[in-house]
């Protein structure tokens, strides 16, 4: 029983972690390329979630088919944000960039509140919704989570290959490493910045489209994921793409710490362990991890950018 519970927790943590790493991908790319922390990142995610929900509700199609729509909307949103807003913020001091994206966060959240109301909404119908599969003999996994995790890994891999293998991806990397030198080489850094926002926006809205399959959406949903994404980016190293993936998995497992605790308490049979309300502090461990990372290794596990 103890090993079953442990397996369940770890599998659930890894699957959730895979989705989380796509959530964090955009944040780390934007930071890597232009040293801007996007506080509105979670709100982009929320927009992705509403896109998935509304597209499937109004067309009757499966929420998974909403993913391309979410990607287009996210990319467009990222582009517009950069061109109309962030580009201008770059001229100001660092503080302006911080407060600017913070303001964007408040704006998007309240806009969603105005348009969709404060109620929780979730997807009721879909190919994967409400079904589950059994893997490794005894481990029950909801299909929505498994599907989301697989697609998340594919999306991540695609983005990674794009950045590593294509010419444009290399230009993006050059801009990240040294914008001045990149400009001398004939790379339009302005366009590269915009591209970073397009990829960042599309990535996180796709993550939202995946997430909405098993996670109810409301206008405030972004905050939790912004926090989780920050932890992942800090752990993986600001700007590091592979770092975001592995850090995502680690954070996913940390969120399942109560399950691991359950497994240990079953294994030891100690009664006091059952009484500890671990589950009430589900996300506390993530923030504690964030604190420790900042204290011990501020560069993160895979940090490459100083």
């Amino acid at each position, binding site marked *: *029983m103890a090993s079953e519970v442990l397996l369940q927790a770890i599998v659930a943590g890894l699957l959730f972690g895979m989705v989380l790493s796509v959530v964090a991908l955009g944040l780390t790319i934007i930071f890597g390329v232009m040293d801007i922390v996007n506080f509105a990142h979670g709100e982009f995610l929320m927009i992705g979630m509403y896109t998935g929900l509304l597209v499937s509700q109004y067309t009757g199609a499966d929420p998974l088919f909403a993913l391309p729509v979410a990607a287009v909307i996210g990319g467009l949103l990222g582009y517009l944000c950069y061109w109309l807003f962030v580009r201008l913020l770059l001229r100001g001091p660092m503080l302006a960039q911080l407060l600017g994206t913070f303001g964007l966060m408040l704006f998007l959240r309240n806009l969603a509140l105005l348009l969709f109301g404060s*109620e929780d909404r979730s997807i009721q119908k879909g190919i994967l919704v409400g079904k589950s599969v059994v893997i490794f003999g005894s481990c029950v996994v909801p299909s929505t989570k498994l599907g989301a995790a697989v697609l998340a890994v594919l999306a991540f891999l695609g983005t990674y290959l794009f950045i590593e293998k294509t010419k444009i991806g290399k230009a993006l990397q050059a801009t990240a490493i040294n914008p001045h030198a990149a400009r001398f080489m004939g790379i339009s850094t302005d366009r590269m910045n915009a591209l970073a926002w397009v990829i960042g926006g599309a990535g996180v809205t796709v993550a939202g489209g995946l997430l909405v399959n098993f996670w109810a959406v409301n206008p405030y949903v972004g905050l939790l994921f912004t926090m989780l994404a920050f932890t992942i980016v800090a752990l993986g190293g600001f700007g590091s793409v592979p770092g975001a993936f592995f850090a995502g998995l680690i954070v996913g497992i940390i969120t399942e710490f109560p399950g691991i605790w359950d497994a240990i308490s079953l294994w030891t049979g100690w009664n006091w362990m059952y009484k500890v*309300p671990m589950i009430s502090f589900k996300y506390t461990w993530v923030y504690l991890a964030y604190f420790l990372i900042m204290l011990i290794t501020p560069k993160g596990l895979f940090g490459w950018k100083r």
Partner: protein
Amino acid sequence: MKRLFLALGFLALFLALFLMEKGAYAQDEITIGVIYPLTGGAASAGRELQMGAELAMEIANGKMPELAMDMAKEAGIKSMGGKKIKLIFKDHEGNPTLGADLAKKLILDDKVVGILGCYHSSVTKAVSAVCEQYGVPMINDSSTSPVLTRQGYKWFWRTTPHDGTFTMDLFEFLKGLSEGKAKGVKPVPKEELMNLAAACEKTEWGSAASQLLEDYAKKYGYNLKRNLLYTAKSADLSSEVRSLLAVNPDAMLFASYTSDAILMVKTLKAQKAKPKLIWGQNAGFDTPEFRSTLGEDIVGILTRTVFSPKLGEVKTISTQINELYKKKAGYDLSDASSRGFTGVQTWFHVLEKAGSTKPEDIQRAANSIEIPGEQLVVPWKGIKFATSGEEPGQNIMGSGIIGQYQKNKEGQVVLEIVYPFELSTANLIYPFPGY
């Protein structure tokens, strides 16, 4: 100069109109402020409460001699010359601070005679404190945390039984099950249902419910192996459910509001949970939204409640009111709507007895009314408030029932009564069929 006079003239006109309207209010209507969660996670329960309260108001203000209720006999409140009751609804969104603000507004701006509400125990707690401070009477129809009537308030009365009663019902039910009292089920050895696991939402109501489960489990000799609290606004409850399943429970007990109750059952299904018994502490487990969203997935789930359309089989008045409600809402009266209805009905009796809108008269009347059980849609012996003892203001004649969702011949999912055993309307489905 001319402009100034003009402006002053307009101002005077506005003021006069405003005062006239206020005056008109005071003359032939008695206003009660009603604070319910009309939006947010418990909105569906809030709308039910509202419709139940509105129906009672319509009956009180009209004349319906075919109903065997004092409130239906005459139009309006007889002792005050036929004055009508007017309800002013406000939405607290499940937020105690907002609830308290709304109560102040109702008391100071709308000059209400009294307050009714508020469903969430946390909100009721905040609102009752405001009412106590201003000396305005408040009747609570739908909050069940035992704490509310243990604060020694002088301006607070509660019609519904509280979770102490309901939790005892649950354990009496379990005990009866082992003694073979349940209809259609052979005696279930106590060991078979020994291990319990509970999850309650963590505001005032859920945490009090959780504590009660702990206390009563000990008292009745059951092992509550896991008793966790969770946030009702959670978007994902899978780790909570896995934590419950980790202790391999025989029975799973919940205290949840609407959206989390639905998510909980969905997650139980996704995790292929198969306990022998699932019981919900009313609220989310007893809303039309819960039934319509989950459909057949709830067959076999138990919930404590104060109303089931099946009550009509033993009570005529329940059927009559249910028919009226059906015309209004399009579906059956439920736990929440019947409690909202009873809340306004109680206000009617209190006002009728008081004969004035002075707070002191209302207080005296509330402490001495007695509404006989025959006039109530709910299966209580009546309404009579305790005036002394540990729980002043608590209705001492209330009781609860436990219902089980079952599929009837027409294929609809209905709530059958399974406890009290003598009121059973169907055989108990045991064990829970699973997914």
